[in-house]
Every structure is written in C-alpha cells, then in structure tokens.
C-alpha cells in the first residue's frame, strides 16, 4: 500500500484536486440525503449507501471518458454519480419516478444510464466483473481505446465470476479494470473469515494479471493507481485488479442493524478516517485551497442535493400501462422470407445450413464473434464453425476456457457494448452452468434499461436424447427458457428452417436460445441459396390434414411424419404443425388448425410437467374450448434423467408406435 497524501501538490493539479473533492462531497451529501429520504418512506425498496467509500468511485472515474463503461453492483449510487449520472435522475429513480435513470424500473440496485456510460448496477453479486470483461472484448474487437470498469465488493472476490472473469481478461489481454472495494464485510461476513487468502490484490497474480492494493480512503492514492491501470488498458497492455481497502460507515443497507458483527468503536474509528475530511485537511494544510473555498463547494453541493430531492418528489410516477414495455427489442420490418423450396432442389444437411447462415452473416457483419470450446481451429465439436477461423482469426473465432458462466456473462457485456456474440455450447446441457447470467442478466437487460440497451446475443447448443449420450449430454430444457420473459427460444426441425431462423437470430436484437436437435444434424433437406429469414413466432404447417392436429417440436417433427405414413386409414388425416420457435409460440396457427380438426395432440421429447404441451393445452382450452371434439392429449418423453443403455434410452423417448397409437386413440375418443 502506498500513501501519497504527503506529496499531493506534486502529483495532481489543483483543479483536479478540487474536482475530486467536489465529487466526493456530491456522493456523500446525496447518500446522506437519500438515507433521510429512506427514513421518510420516500424510497420504496432497498438502499445501500456508499458513505465512507467515496474516494474509490471518484478516484477511478476521474480518468474515464463518457465512452468508457462502468458496471457496478448493489452499492452503486456513488459509481453512478461519479460516472456522470445526475443527482436528479438518481433521486428520481430511488423514488420510483418515471424520469429516474432507469425510468422507475430499477431502484437502488439497478441504475442504468448507458448514455453516460453507466451500464448498470446489478442486484446479483458478481456478474459486473464478467460484463466489464465483455465490454473489454467488444473494445478489443472494435479496436477502440475504450475501457470497461467493474466495481465490486470483497464479497464478490469469492464468487466464481471473479475467478472466471479475471482469467479471461488475462488470457485475452482485455482493456478492463477490476476495482475491488474491500470494505471488509460481505453484509455481516468478514473477509478475514470467508477468504483463504484475504489479500485480494495478491490474487491477481494467480491469473497472470497485475494486482495493486491501495488505501481506498485516500482519493489521491486511488486516483494515481487507477490512472496507471486505465492507461495500461487503453494502450493494449491488458487488465488490472485494483484492491481498495476501505470501510462502509453506515449499515449494509438502510434500516439494517449494524452491531451484531462489528463494534461502535470500530465504526467510529473509521469515521475519523473519512476520505473527504482527510483531503480537506491536506488541501488547507498545503495551501491549495482555503476553508472558505471548500465551504463554498460544500454549499453548492447542498443546493444541488436539495434540488435533486425536490425534483424527484415532484416527478410523476410511471404509467402502469408501460409495465410490460421493452421486454424485447422493437421488431424489424422488411424481413425477406421465402417459401420452402420443393424437394429436388439443392439439398444440404442441417449443420451445413446453420453453418451457411453463420458464415454469411459473419461476412456481412464484422461485429459478430463466436465463442466456445473448440470452435476455433478445430471448427467445433459438431462442425458448426469449420473453416471460419481461417477467415476471421482468433478474436472473432474465440476458443474459450471451460468457463461457461464466465463467457456467457462476458457475452452479455459484449452485447451491451456494440458487438454481437454467438456462444456455441456444443451441448446445451452446459448452458445450465450459466443460467444465472442468462435469466438474471441477459433476459432482463433490455427491460431494465427501458430499451436503451440491446441484447443481440445468440446462445446455441445441441439438445435431445440419442447416441447413448446419457444424462449430461442429452438435455432439452427449452421450456425452462421459454418461461422467462426476454428470451427467444428457437428449436428448428429441418435444414430450411434452421438456416432461416439462424439468419433471423443473427439480425435481431433480442437474446436467442438456438437449440439444435442433435439427432437431426445430419438430416438433409432443400435449402435455397438466396438470402432469406424466417421470423420468430410463425409456425409451419408441415402437412395439412383434417382430422387431428398434431403439434410437434424439433426431433419429434420427422417422428410424427413417419407415424403419419403408417396411419393411412380414412378418417385419420393429420395436420402437422411445427411451431419452430417455442418462444414466441404461434398459438394462432394451432388454434386455427384445431378449429378445423377438433382434435389436438402435442408430441414433445421434453418432459410433460410444466412443459410446452401444458402451455399449448391451456391456451387451447381457454380460447378454443368450443372447437374441441375430444380431450387434448400429449405424448412426451419420460420424466426421468436420460439413461445410457440403448434399451433404456429408447424407453424414455416417444417412439413412432407411441405416436401412432396416441393418434388412433384420440380419433376414437
């Protein structure tokens, strides 16, 4: 640790020192005012103040331009103010007003202001580290000199995101700065207890990164260390971990008890080490500023803070009618679609079809990059990226460490900052390691930023039972994702759909789960050479019929076609519908078909409970009750983990004979 207060004048200009002073005052006074407002009931939810830690945000952000980006955590008011979010917008947000920085959608823990480079604070401890690395990845790909900064606590240093994020920043030499604000507690758990090595700064060495530890209550020390680190990042010399030792002198959150885990004396001791008072004393002692000048700054800030409070109190509450806006990006117009070419025209495999889509889009859009294990030179476990490494190199075709959570979180940060990541999981089972990043961050980002951030990320992987792949290489899981607002979930069943849907996914601004049935990868089918897209939410009528509507998903589509070939007796004419995307789900096409046939069977390899079939059945019972001439039936895979042995494996997947008999029974009902 270095202390630089002794040489204040030598290191930093008077003007900068006054700016640092002013910014710290701004944060302190806003926080104290917010604490008062919390007591008055003006803040509806949680409120974590930054009192005592002001020097860190101020010392770091003094080096940042508007184009540089900050990702922060639950204790983020100070980071937002230091990055340039106005106190009015901050207060209005905490007061739940329509003109708050997150338009009333976030509150204390979700502050978004992409216009000022404040890319969001998160109520989940950890993801900001990965997102800052992702911003760094974008800036590297775009060859800009911007920097991504993450602020996080000592608690986050024990989270996997810290490990995966720092490692990836190191191996890819990313322009990022990781600022650990070690206030010695995660809520009430001391770092000395929770860390095998509580010297956070020293951990950087384990990842091959420079680690610096400074007195976080010394704004000049922070300023100096951050300056060096940011300069390193800007000039292509990679990331730094900066540990700032500090202390929060208010409770973890307003209204929480404080002395079950620490003493009043300890808190009082740290209050005496107030970073603002320390700077004030030095400025006066060294003749840099008079007490009057500093008092005047304090008074100006008082006016600003009072104004912010008044502004927020007078601001309107959001219109409840807007509560479900911005879950998805606005739909594109002018989408070029074609009808499926007749058999006999050029036929390629499913995997070749998606490869074509990806290759064409990568050629057209330099912001697309692919991440995954073995997708570089090797070309992917399933040949999803063969040959692309030679064309686009290691930055756009990026082999990853086995850090699923890490590179998904990184992809999220990249998508927030102007690039379009494609994450290739090989098996969709591995996605589960990153579900927190997908559900809590990726799916919610457009909504929480009230549509000011986009989330153009494609997450792809193989699904489905077969090849004796056993239970960790055969998951389907798409109902899980379809349940979540903000995600698009695509399950193509043939090469034509796969290419058109992949093209659409690579041009849309929403996060897309692109799930490819492994058993279909070598299926051949006609695919046009011309450019086309298939928009989401448009089911295909694979085969028209009059007696039974069968809705099948993914692998089950060809399975039902095979069953239909066996069912040639009169009175069993099958209308087969492939939704193609399970979110959005084209209920209208299904309903129109049921209105014709009066009978509905849903065939899905996925588990029945809480599944797509249940969703479709509920929708039809609701809107199409009077169309039904028989109960709605489902054929699903068994509700069991996938077994290995071929006889066991076959027993858990819907077989053609199951489908045949289900259709016959339904017609007899």
């Amino acid at each position, binding site marked *: 640790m270095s202390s630089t207060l002794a040489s204040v004048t030598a290191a930093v200009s008077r003007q900068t020192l006054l700016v640092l002073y002013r910014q710290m005052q701004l944060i302190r006074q806003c926080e104290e005012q917010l604490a008062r407002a919390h007591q008055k009931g003006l803040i509806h939810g949680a409120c974590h103040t930054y009192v005592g830690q002001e020097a860190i945000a101020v010392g770091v952000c003094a080096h940042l331009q508007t184009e540089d980006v900050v990702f922060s955590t639950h204790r983020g008011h100070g980071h937002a103010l230091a990055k340039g979010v106005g106190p009015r917008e901050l207060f209005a947000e905490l007061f739940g007003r329509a003109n708050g920085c997150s338009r009333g959608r976030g509150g204390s823990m979700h502050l978004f202001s992409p216009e000022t480079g404040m890319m969001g604070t998160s109520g989940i401890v950890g993801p900001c580290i990965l997102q800052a690395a992702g911003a760094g990845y974008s800036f590297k790909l775009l060859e800009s000199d911007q920097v991504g900064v993450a602020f996080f606590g000592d608690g986050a240093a024990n989270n996997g995101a810290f490990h995966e994020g720092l490692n990836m920043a190191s191996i890819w030499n990313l322009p990022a700065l990781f600022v650990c604000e070690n206030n010695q507690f995660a809520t009430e758990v001391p770092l000395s207890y929770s860390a095998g090595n509580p010297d956070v700064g020293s951990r950087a060495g384990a990842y091959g990164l420079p680690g610096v530890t400074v007195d976080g209550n010394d704004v000049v020390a922070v300023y100096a260390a951050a300056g060096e680190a940011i300069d390193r990042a800007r000039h292509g010399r990679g990331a730094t971990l900066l540990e700032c030792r500090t202390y929060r002198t208010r409770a973890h959150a307003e209204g929480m008890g404080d002395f079950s885990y620490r003493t009043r004396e300890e808190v009082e001791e740290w209050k005496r080490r107030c970073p603002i008072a320390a700077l004030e004393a030095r400025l006066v002692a060294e003749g840099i500023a008079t007490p009057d000048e500093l008092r005047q700054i304090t008074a100006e800030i008082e006016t600003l803070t009072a104004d912010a409070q008044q502004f927020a109190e007078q601001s309107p509450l959001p219109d409840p009618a807007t509560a479900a806006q911005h879950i998805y990006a606005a739909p594109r117009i002018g989408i070029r679609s074609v009808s499926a070419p007749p058999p006999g025209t050029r036929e390629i495999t499913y995997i070749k079809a998606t490869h074509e889509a990806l290759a064409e889009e990568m050629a057209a859009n330099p912001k697309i990059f692919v991440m995954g294990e073995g997708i570089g030179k090797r070309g992917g476990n399933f040949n999803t990226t063969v040959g692309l490494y030679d064309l686009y190199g290691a930055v756009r075709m990026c082999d990853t460490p086995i850090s699923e959570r890490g590179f998904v979180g990184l992809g999220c940060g990249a998508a927030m900052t102007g690039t379009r990541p494609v994450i290739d999981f090989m098996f969709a089972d591995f996605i589960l390691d990153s579900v927190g990043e997908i559900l809590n961050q990726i799916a919610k980002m457009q909504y929480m930023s009230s549509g000011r951030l986009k989330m153009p990320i494609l997450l792809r992987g193989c699904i489905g039972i077969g090849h004796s792949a056993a239970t960790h290489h055969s998951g389907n899981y798409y109902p899980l994702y379809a349940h979540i607002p903000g995600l698009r979930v695509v399950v193509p069943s043939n090469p034509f759909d796969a290419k058109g849907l992949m093209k659409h996914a690579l041009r849309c601004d929403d996060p897309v789960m692109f799930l490819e049935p492994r058993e279909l990868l070598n299926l051949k089918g006609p695919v046009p050479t011309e450019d086309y897209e298939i928009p989401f939410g448009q089911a295909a009528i694979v085969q028209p019929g009059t007696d039974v509507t069968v809705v099948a998903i993914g692998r089950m589509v060809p399975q039902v076609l095979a069953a239909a070939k066996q069912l040639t007796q009169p009175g069993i004419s099958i209308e087969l519908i492939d939704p193609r995307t399970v979110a959005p789900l084209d*209920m*209208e096409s299904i*309903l*129109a078909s*049921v*209105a*014709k046939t*009066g009978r509905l069977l849903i065939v899905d390899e996925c588990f029945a409970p809480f599944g797509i079939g249940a969703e479709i059945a509920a*929708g039809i019972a*609701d*809107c*199409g*009750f*009077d*169309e*039904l*001439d*028989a109960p709605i039936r489902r054929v699903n895979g068994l509700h069991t983990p996938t077994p290995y042995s071929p006889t066991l494996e076959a027993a858990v997947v819907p077989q053609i004979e199951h489908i045949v008999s289900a259709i016959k*029974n339904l017609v*007899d*009902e």
Partner: protein
Amino acid sequence: MEEGTFGEWLKRDGETIERGTALFVLEGEKSAQDIESLDRGILRIPPDGPRPGETVKVGQLLGYLVEAGERAPFETSTAPAGHLPVAVGDAGSAATPPAGPATRRMARELKVDLQRVPGSGPGGRVTPDDVNAWVPAVLVKRASERVTISPRARRLAGQLGVDWTSLRGSGRTGRIRERDVRSAAAANGPAAAQLSSSGHSPLQRVAGDLPGPWLSVTTMRKTIAARMAAGVHETAPVTITTRCDASNLVNLRQQFRQTACNDEPVPGYNDLIIKLLAGALVRHPQLTHQWHERGIYVPEGLHIAVAVDTDAGLLAPVLRDVDRLSLRDVAARMKHLAEQARSGSLSAADIQGGVFTISNLGMFGIEAFTPIINLPQSAILGVGAIVRDAAVVNDTVVPRDRLTLSLTFDHRVVDGAPAARFLQTLRQAIEAPGAALLQ
C-alpha cells in the same frame, strides 16, 4: 302473460338466495326479464327442471327454496315409484350418519339413503366404498353413464337446433361428438346439416390475444340476437319491394299540420301508414297467420308491433286493434308507447300479441331494406324515406314524392302472389290515402 320461455338460471343449485336476488331469466316476446326471488332460502333445482329455451307456464313449478338442512321434495321419499327400492327410505327420521362430501354427493347421484349404508370408517363413518358396496352394480353403472358431449359437438347442436340429450355418442366412452350431431341433423333435414362449423372465423376466438375492449352482453341483447337469428334461420324469408307515389300522403300530412290544434299530436307518416296498413291487413288476413308445429295459427285481433329504437336496443311495442282505432288514436297511442319504450317502462303486455310488425328507417334516409321476421309472426313491413324524385307521369318527367316499401314474409305461410297482392293494396292505399282512410 300466460307462458314464457325459460332463459337460464342465474343462481346455481345449492346457492343461498336472499330476498330480491335475481333467480332466473324469463323471456317474453321481445323482452327478457330477470325474475327476482321474494323469499330467502337455499335454491334447489330438480333434475327435471326446465331447460333453457323450454316454454314454461305461469304457476309452473321450477325449483325449490329450502331451509338449511331441509331436503327438497325431489330428493326424499316422495320420489316416483320408478326408482329402485334402495332409493325409497324413511329418510329424515333419524340423524344422518357421518360421511364426507364426496360420499354424500355419490349417495345423492345414486339416490341412496345414507342411513341404510353400514359405515366402515371410524365412528361408523360411511365411505365411498361403502356406498359402492351397498348399491346394486347396475345402478353404479347407470350413474357413470351420464351423457357427455364434446364442447364442439355441443356448440354445433346449438347451431343446428339438435337436442343432444337423447343422442347416443360414438366416442370411446360414449361421448357425443361432432359427427353424432351432424348425423342427427342430417336425419332431421339435409339443409340443417349443411350449416358448417367453418362458418365462423376461428381467429375471432383467440380472445386472449385480442386487445379488446370487450363489451358484456345484456340479457336483452342476447334475446334480440337469438330472436333475430331465429327470424332468419327458422323461417323461409322472402323480401319484395315496391315504390309508391307518396305525393298525396305528403299533401294529407301537410293538411293535418296546418289544421292542428295544440293539444293533439299531428299524425306522422308512420301513423298514417300504420292505419293504412291495418286496412290492407283486413283485406289480406293471411299475412297475419303464423306457422306452428301443429299447423297454421290464426291469431285474434289486428295488433301491430312497431319497431322502436332505444338506447338499450330494439323494442317492438304493440298497438292493439288498429283496425278499430281512429287515426288520431293511432297517433296518440303510438306517441305514448314510443315514450314508454325509450324510458324502459313498457309492461310485458305492451310487447305481446303482435300479428304483424312495421319498421321505419326513413328518418335515416334508408329507402329499401330487408327487415327480419319477428317470430312467430309471418311478415314485417319496412318503410323507407320519402324522397322527392323525378317521375314519369303521362310521358313527362315531373317531380314526385316517392316512398319504397319492403315486405319480408315467411314463404312457409304465404306464397309470393298473395304477398305481392297485399303489398299492391297497401301501395294503392298510400297513393290514395283519403279514400283508404275513409273505409
């Protein structure tokens, strides 16, 4: 009112009813009323109670209001002799044995007296298994043979007017399916079976997806809808039109206006036409005859229903014995009836017994239209606007007031020629109103 059509129960069997609660909907000719309960109690609806659409007579027993704990007559020992002996017990004489609600319901459905069933549960509690063991197997089977029908088949049955309660279902479990209703309808008459279920757009039914707004449908609206649909589907409607020279009618009205005194209403065109219409109907009574299952019914009295547009919807109050009223009486009564219709104070009697309906859309500039027959009547006259038009009289073009009449009649009752002759009579009366009014 001697009889009405039972609309629907507004309360369910077993619900507690307070005084003044609306109990059921009763439909008169063109109005539907919610009938309120005068007493409080628990509503019990007998299994053979009236079904929607059934005709019920004044004084007919529809259901029971019982006290808590009291049984309705239809569930006790007074059950008809056709029931199996197990059902006929000395119910009510001893305390009911303990049994859960499922057991009780089962006993009710099977008409089993729970007191006779030995309970095997704790404290002699009767279980469903006990009931099953007690009841002859044949009866259990009957209870499970309740008629079931798919929603689609039920809708179609309604559309085709098929009484499905007596159909045998072809479904695996005996469920009545679309095909069963269609073949029943085909047996009734090939035309009905043609009504295709694809006649409506399925997309209209994605209620969850349509943003709305949705309007709730009043009972009156439902009644109008049903009656209008019946007027089209259950008759053989034909519409014919004719153009009259209304110059003399216009003149006559002009004279009435000029000589009017303050306290008497001036007869309007509609009043004049109603009066002239009555004269034409006296000469062509066939237009008032009605088609019924039993035969053609000849109603008494020349009562003319007059369509009146109100905020709540279309109403048709009836002007009685028009042939015996003076033109002044017609005008005065019509004014009064229209006011009552608009203020919602028509009595049931005011809208019953019409033998012919007249509907006037002239005030909206409509010239000709196809009015819908107001069942059980056989004909309805649509009166258009009086327009000043070029007419050829004696080979010269002259301005004339012209009026178009549209007559829809039920071809089951009246053939084309007699209907045309009636319309011709009416046209001549309108063209020479003085003479016609003298008669």
